[in-house]
């Protein structure tokens, strides 16, 4: 199915063979030349998992992980800082275990350039890292300037985005928890494709839950360029039950056929303005604190703009991204179709049916680690399989999920595990509660699998 990898593996085999010959002639150079060097750029979920599993599969590999920040702030579950469920400290993940338990060389530095011909990555401090294979997992870049009046400066000071955790998360938490009684919180959901499909809606839901207790006259408005979202039926059924949210008519029709839907005479504080209702964001006015959408202008006390996003900046720097802003790859190995000996995984990659999620990045990393190890040994990469199974919250005690298993079907990555992806609408209270608890457990086990 895939001719490229076998071609690469022939080359690699040849270079290993040459290396062996050189080893015979110059023993002192042998070790450095025959030990395959893998460089991983990006210390998020994708990069960390790749580095760990490369070492798990073959401890003799020379694996270097280059990451800009010394401490990783996990984005998954970071909305729980906003409602005070956890603190910013709880998001911190360190690289010690990768280094100490698996022998990954962790370099804290910023990658500035890729020399694909010399097979070398260069960093801000002037270091150069040669590789036999390079794995790039650069995550996302937020396109703040997609909206008039919005910019990174505005996001940092007044209208946070907080889709990559950091100071903006802390700022948004302060703003939300300090919002005046009866204030309005507007969350601008992003257009497709974006990282973590249920994420914006989980964030709005958790804040609605918090406001119900702490600021019961507050308002929460989600403005959306889209008319639907991943987990929409189960998420909104939760809102219907928890927040006196009335379902849009088309959803109510679909859902009421299977399970009871409440129609609230006096709707609660949460509303969702869809694309077809004019929900697409046009302009932010940080001074007046207004957000202009196609359907009108809303003045708010707190505005969270989840900006459109594309592959992390390095993808462009390294010429890995195409005009879509994301990186095309071979499905079997996630090898870049643009630059040889380089693989791209995670949110930055174009992965057909796989959503942009941590779980996807985690399983992509494992497939790539395996492919690299096999190809370096002169064998073809095996048939891959990926998953995306993760939990989300409609409330602290109300959980839901999406569950996907993927294989390559007709040359593209497609789901193979049945028609249904989501928690059934008629789930029992026990299932719903367990989903919420499993979500918390998953945050822990997932972090362990990626970083420890």
């Amino acid at each position, binding site marked *: 199915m895939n001719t490229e990898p076998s071609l690469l593996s022939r080359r690699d085999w040849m270079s290993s063979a040459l290396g062996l010959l050189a080893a015979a002639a110059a023993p002192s150079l042998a070790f450095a030349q025959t030990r395959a060097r893998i460089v991983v750029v990006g210390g998020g979920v994708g990069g960390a998992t790749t580095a760990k599993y490369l070492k798990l599969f073959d401890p003799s590999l020379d694996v270097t992980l280059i990451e800009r920040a010394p401490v990783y702030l996990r984005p998954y579950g970071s909305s729980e800082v906003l409602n005070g469920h956890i603190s910013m400290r709880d998001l911190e993940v360190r690289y010690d275990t990768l280094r100490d338990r698996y022998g990954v060389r962790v370099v804290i530095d910023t990658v500035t350039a890729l020399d694909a011909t010399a097979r070398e990555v260069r960093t801000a401090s002037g270091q150069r890292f040669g590789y036999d294979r390079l794995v790039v997992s650069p995550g996302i870049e937020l396109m703040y300037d997609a909206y008039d009046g919005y910019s990174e400066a505005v996001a940092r000071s007044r209208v946070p985005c907080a889709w990559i955790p950091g100071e903006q998360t802390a700022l948004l938490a302060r703003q939300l928890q300090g919002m005046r009684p009866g204030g309005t919180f507007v969350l601008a959901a992003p257009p497709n494709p974006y990282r973590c499909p249920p994420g914006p809606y989980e964030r709005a839901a958790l804040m609605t839950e918090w406001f119900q207790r702490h600021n019961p006259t507050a308002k929460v408005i989600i403005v959306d360029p889209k008319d639907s979202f991943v987990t929409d039926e189960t998420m909104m059924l939760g809102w219907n039950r928890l927040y006196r949210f009335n379902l849009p*008519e088309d959803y109510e029709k679909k859902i009421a056929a299977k399970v009871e839907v409440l129609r609230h005479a006096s709707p609660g504080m949460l509303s969702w303005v869809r694309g077809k209702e004019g929900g697409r964001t046009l302009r932010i006015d940080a001074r007046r604190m207004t957000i202009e959408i196609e359907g009108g202008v809303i003045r708010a006390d707190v505005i969270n703009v989840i900006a459109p996003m594309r592959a992390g900046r390095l993808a462009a720097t390294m010429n890995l991204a195409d005009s879509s802003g994301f990186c095309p790859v071979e499905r079997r190995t996630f090898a870049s179709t643009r630059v040889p000996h380089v693989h791209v995984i995670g949110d930055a990659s174009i992965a057909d049916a796989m959503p942009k999620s941590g779980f996807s990045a985690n399983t992509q990393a494992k497939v790539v680690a395996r492919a690299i190890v096999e190809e370096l040994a002169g064998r073809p990469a095996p048939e891959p399989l990926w998953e995306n199974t993760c939990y989300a919250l409609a409330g602290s005690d109300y959980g839901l999920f999406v569950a996907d298993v993927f294989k390559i079907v007709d040359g593209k990555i497609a789901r193979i595990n049945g028609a249904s992806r989501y928690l059934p609408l008629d789930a029992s209270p026990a299932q719903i509660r367990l989903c919420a608890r499993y979500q918390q457990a998953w945050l822990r086990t997932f972090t362990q699998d990626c970083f420890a």
Partner: protein
Amino acid sequence: MKGATMICPVFIPRRSARRVRPLAVLAATLALAAVSTHASDAHTPPTAQPWTPATLRQALAALPPGDAARGRTVHETMFCASCHGERGQAPTLNWPHLAGQKAAYTAKMLLDYRDGRRLENHGALLMRDLAQMLTPQQMADVAAFYAQQPLPRDDGTPRAAVSAEALRQAERLVRHGDPARLITPCASCHGARGEGGTREAGALAGQNPLYLRRTLLDFQSGRRHNDAVKGMSTFAQRLTRTEIEALAVYYADPSAGRHALRQAAR
């Protein structure tokens, strides 16, 4: 909208008008929400009163009579089977078997989880959430269901390597205790064959030895403190680590350790 200072919610009559649900139905369907908002935040430790023998007796007596057939339904629909096994014999190393457990003990554990007297690890936190979703009738029923199951055996859990001497010491503790350390025989509460004894003293025969070992260590360290009048804590504090390991292995075999003694002698 301009100039409006007070905007009331607008009720738009639908073409197929859905009548407002009667309060009772609304309350029932929103029970989930009520439970959710009232349910303890996983981060706040609850403050439950420790048992006295009297309050424990009263609490257990207050439970309705349990029905094992109904209990099977609870076991299946509330995900008990998922962790504790189809017939109450847990398929993993970490969790206890419930098969053959005394109904009073199982019920007490559910009350302890529900009220936060027992919260020693992540598993216990999950149990708290589940126990809070059970009615007293469901607790009584599921306890009756487990009591009806045969005691576990040959669960396949790895046993720690304990010497024959340690096992003999374990048998001594079970049958005779140790007067020097004021340790009463385990059998005096837990039954001659570890089948459980008076009131809420649990069955130990066939229990997952890793779980039993952890439990004794937790009582020893105080991580578990839901025992009435601190009985188990007192005994556990006086046991050595070797004795704890040996007791766990001893009880793991339903024929009260003789088999284990034979194996250790090989």
